[in-house]
């Protein structure tokens, strides 16, 4: 698989045992976050008088439904997530900033993501200060950051059995068309394998909203997701 850095950061399932021991971390250092925000600032404004630029302004982003501004021209992908009912809570912001495509394939946010969890925590702490009602955010959620998990290299190196991928794919083709036609269900052929794997894990972890895909991905093992990514990735 084509993992440039060799390591892809995803997040632990809420229930993972390792996490129970983990001590709650502060969401981050807002002052340092203001500096991190400089990478966002080329596209986003925040604070008094902020308006839309390449990206929408980020005032009041916490606990708001995604893609809420009617006067901003969002991508189809993020509008779909909005209709699915996705909300910008800490968990989703965290996933989006890690790698925007994890959460929204085809997002217009042309940004590779912040790979360092500290950067993410800090910038989110900074943005939280511009949330309309920061005091309404339940204390538990923003103060405890979930531990990131690095997929073990052997999982990443996993080469999907194409024959198995083809068999597994038959469950998908009831809805997703192999010839890449779009009639209301997204096209999943010809993707970069990494994007595909991230999207499937995001459904599996129930970070991406959508009951059908959460169910479909929920029962796929890592090697099965790899096999599917390889199979669909190779189709034009």
């Amino acid at each position, binding site marked *: 698989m084509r993992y440039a850095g060799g390591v892809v950061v995803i997040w632990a399932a809420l229930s993972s045992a390792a996490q129970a021991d983990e001590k709650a971390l502060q969401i981050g250092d807002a002052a340092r976050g203001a500096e991190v925000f400089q990478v966002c600032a080329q596209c986003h404004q925040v604070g008094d008088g902020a308006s839309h630029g390449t990206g929408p302004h980020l005032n009041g982003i916490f606990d708001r439904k995604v893609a809420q501004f009617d006067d901003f021209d969002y991508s189809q992908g993020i509008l779909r997530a909005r*209709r699915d*009912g996705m909300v910008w809570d800490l968990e989703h912001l965290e996933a989006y900033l890690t790698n925007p495509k994890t959460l929204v394939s085809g997002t217009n946010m042309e940004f590779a993501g912040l790979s360092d969890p500290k950067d993410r925590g800090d910038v989110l702490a900074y943005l939280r200060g511009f949330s309309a009602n920061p005091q309404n955010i339940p204390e538990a959620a923003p103060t405890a950051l979930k531990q990131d998990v690095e997929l073990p290299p052997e999982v990443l190196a996993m080469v999907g059995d194409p*024959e198995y991928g083809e068999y597994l794919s038959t469950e998908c083709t009831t809805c997703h068309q192999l*010839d890449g036609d779009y*009639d*209301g269900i997204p096209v999943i052929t010809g993707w970069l394998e990494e994007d595909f794997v991230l999207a499937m894990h995001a459904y599996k972890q129930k970070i991406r909203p959508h009951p059908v895909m959460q*169910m479909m991905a929920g*029962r796929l093992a890592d090697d099965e997701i790899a096999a599917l990514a390889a199979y669909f990735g190779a189709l034009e």
Partner: protein
Amino acid sequence: MKFNRRSFIGTGIVAAATLHAPIVLGAGKPRVVVIGGGAGGATAARYIAKDSDGAIDVTLVEPTRSYYTCFFSNLYIGGFRDLKSIVHSYGKLASEYGINVVHDWAVGIDRSARTVTLAGGAVLPYDRLILSPGIDFIDGAVPGWDVTQQNKMPHAYKAGSQTELLKAQIEAMPEGGVFAMVAPPNPFRCPPGPYERISMVAHLLTQINPTAKILVADPKEKFSKQALFEEGWQKHYAGMIERLGPDFGGGNVTVNPDAMTITIDGTEEKVDVCNVIPAQKAGRICEMAGITEGNWAPVHAHTMQSRLDENIYVLGDASNQGDMPKSGFSANSQAKVAAMAVRGALTGSKVFPAKYSNTCWSLIATDDGVKVGAAYEATDEKIASVSSFVSQTGEDAAMRQQTYEESIGWYAGITADIFG
């Protein structure tokens, strides 16, 4: 290795008698006959032909040249689809996949000789037989009604001319007239089907005959997606729909097609249209093959093989498999498992553990779609549900619209998966 003598007769195929051992390729290719070119049968035929690269000879027996999908036929009644958009032909299965499509009825199955006899007289030998004949109605299920009355009181539970007729009758209803439905008892094809139909009839009547009434006599206490449908009926069609459950005699119904009356719990009512959806059983050919127990054909969950004959697989509505609803999605899902098992048995190709799933969308009103679904696994006893979901009441309009749009995507996807 022991050879079954019978398989030599007429076929020239040398078949291994041991179950699951690959057929020894001798004088000819192994033969699979599929009866029924619907959601289950056409999918199975296509997958076997596609994945065996010509190593298996596939014959599909289906009397009609045009298959009207029951799925989305309610949307035709509601005016959301035209009839053309729900009809499919078998051209691609023949030309692109090399399937021998025979337009005829199967009228007999000789399990020991392993042959299928067609109404036209042809006798087809098989190594494996796949049955996906859908449903038939149980005689006498609704006193006063039998299939000879289906033009007066249509069932429209096999799509095509029946669906067209039902819609025409609704359009011809007098102002303020009554549309009645006799809903079926469990288990039946497409659990949300009757209720999606009620929604679509209501949608149509709201536009052309807003003072008309809808009366549903239902022998069931509860039905699929009930909270969602009832919420939608209240919201979009308030005051139009009355459903009488078993407590109000909904299970005690007779009809008189000549007089156009329906009698519920002793009270006779004159109606303008009467949609009778009788109790159901496996397509008759299953009974003729002697592979039914009760009304349905029991199968093994791992392969969809008949519990009564290992050379026969039964798919879709006709099968009794466990927890999956009788839906086109289920039939398609089961067909892929069976296709893999059949190829494994005949050519020794790899067989992976069975996975099944189902999602049923229903349209309640314009852009108001809902869905229910589940994933399943095979156990020794049955196909067992492992997880499920259902749309929630009170969802916002954007989500409902998206759900409807997904169902359109699904229709395009599944029909491509079935017919190529």
